């Protein structure tokens, strides 16, 4: 298979959400002497971009994005030993701490954002769901992220996004990080209202917004 053809197959494996196929192609790439970093950035990653775009405009849905994320993860895991052996790593786009705020157990939206950020080379620390302001604070101290992502699905739990920002302020850490919020009832106005730096509408949008936040930092 030509290199170009192999890259296309890699993107297709991610678009189709096929982890086994992605692993096989990763091995083929290494056997063909392709740099593992190139395999990720030129082969697999563009497939994730395609699915992300389709998701944002309603042509792909949660299962598609989740399975594509799995395929990409499988590919990267398969390439990892070779990357380590060459003392290489993907360029880290930035560090993000993310979680669903206290009182809210909705996981999917937050996980999709984490998946898309990781796919785009961010170091993501996912704190899970029902995360207290104190836990966010601890994670900010521990990981020193560029960006903190706060998710909430419910109109009632959205208020707890503000509680995290208040906690960061009280600890004197608010200026060290950028804060991005998301969730069904959230909006740019809501972000401004509670003193967050930005709002993202969906997982694809979140990547764009987080990149902008880091560039403007």
């Amino acid at each position, binding site marked *: 298979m030509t290199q170009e053809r192999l890259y296309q197959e890699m993107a297709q494996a991610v678009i189709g959400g096929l982890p086994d196929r992605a692993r096989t192609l990763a091995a083929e790439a290494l056997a063909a002497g392709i740099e593992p970093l190139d395999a990720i950035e030129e082969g697999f990653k563009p497939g994730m971009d395609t699915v992300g775009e389709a998701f944002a*405009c*309603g042509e*792909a*849905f*949660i*299962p*598609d994005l*989740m*399975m594509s994320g*799995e395929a990409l993860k499988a590919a990267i895991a398969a390439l990892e030993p070779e990357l380590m052996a060459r003392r290489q790593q993907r360029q880290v786009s930035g560090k993000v701490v993310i979680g669903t705020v*206290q*009182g*809210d*157990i909705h996981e*999917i939206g937050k996980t999709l954002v984490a998946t898309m950020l990781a796919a785009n080379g961010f170091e993501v620390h996912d704190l899970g769901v*029902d995360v207290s302001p104190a836990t966010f604070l601890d994670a900010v101290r521990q990981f020193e992220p560029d960006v903190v992502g706060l998710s909430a699905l*419910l*109109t*009632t*739990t*959205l*208020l*707890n996004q*503000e509680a995290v920002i208040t906690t960061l302020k009280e600890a004197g850490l608010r200026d060290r990080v950028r804060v991005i919020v998301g969730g*069904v*009832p*959230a*909006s740019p*106005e*809501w972000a401004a*209202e509670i003193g967050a730096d930005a709002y993202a509408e969906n997982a694809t949008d979140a990547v764009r917004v987080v990149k902008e936040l880091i560039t403007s930092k």
Partner: protein
Amino acid sequence: MLDVLNSGRVLVADGATGTMLQAEGLPVGLPGEAWVLERPDVIVKLHRAYLDAGSDLILTTTFGGTRPRLARARLDDRVPEINRRAAELAREAVQAGTYAGRDVGPFVGGDVGPTGEMMPPLGKLTYQGAVDLFAEQIGALAAGGVDCIWIETMSALEEARAAIDAARQVTDLPVFCTFSFDTHGRTSMGLSPSQAAAAVAELGAVGTGANCGHAPEEVLDFLPRVGEAAPGLYLVAKPNAGIPRMVGRQAVYDADPERLAALARQYVDLGAHIVGACCGSSPAHIAAIAAMVGE
């Protein structure tokens, strides 16, 4: 209940439960199911508020009454008790003297929502595992005296299938199953109104349609497609009171009672047999819908 529907009478369902209970002081993070045991008086009061507003069909406070969801509030050792008790409370509200003089009903639907878990390859919940979870809940609802099983806000086809399967295994009550088409006209899992309706019809549910979702106007587009894919089934329209926006610290749903009532009229014109409301609605919305439907 089916005789009434077959007579051509449109039934008015109820509106939101969670946000109404929170207005009564239910703490954020605590599910309404907890109050079935702790504050049954408030649950009955809310049912009666909807009945007073004109609901012919009220739903039990059991949307999150499956084991995994109750486990999040450490109530998973009380699944049968909560569901049975919730059915009894709704039944108690219906039997309060005020409604006995109505020509039909009111009826009680045993509310069943998603488990919050996903099936392979996305999650670990097996199909049989899901059937077992739903059967546990639905068996208790049936024992508590509901008139029908009301599965709602579904987004994954396999989970809806498991819920209907479970219902048919443990009871002869009629089963309704509606979906939340909240993502670009499909469910969040990508299911279209036609696909969802066709599947539900094949599984033996008696009714289907749209609940929750995005803008209530979108339901006007869904109903004909649901009707076409599930001929002979009763059509349900139970949308949110618009889209929530935060105004200051307050969530405001943008559809007032008049707008929902005008839409309810259109749903009925499109063939809806049961109309009601979902998130963000109140007895005022249901009163307006009942008045419009009654004309």
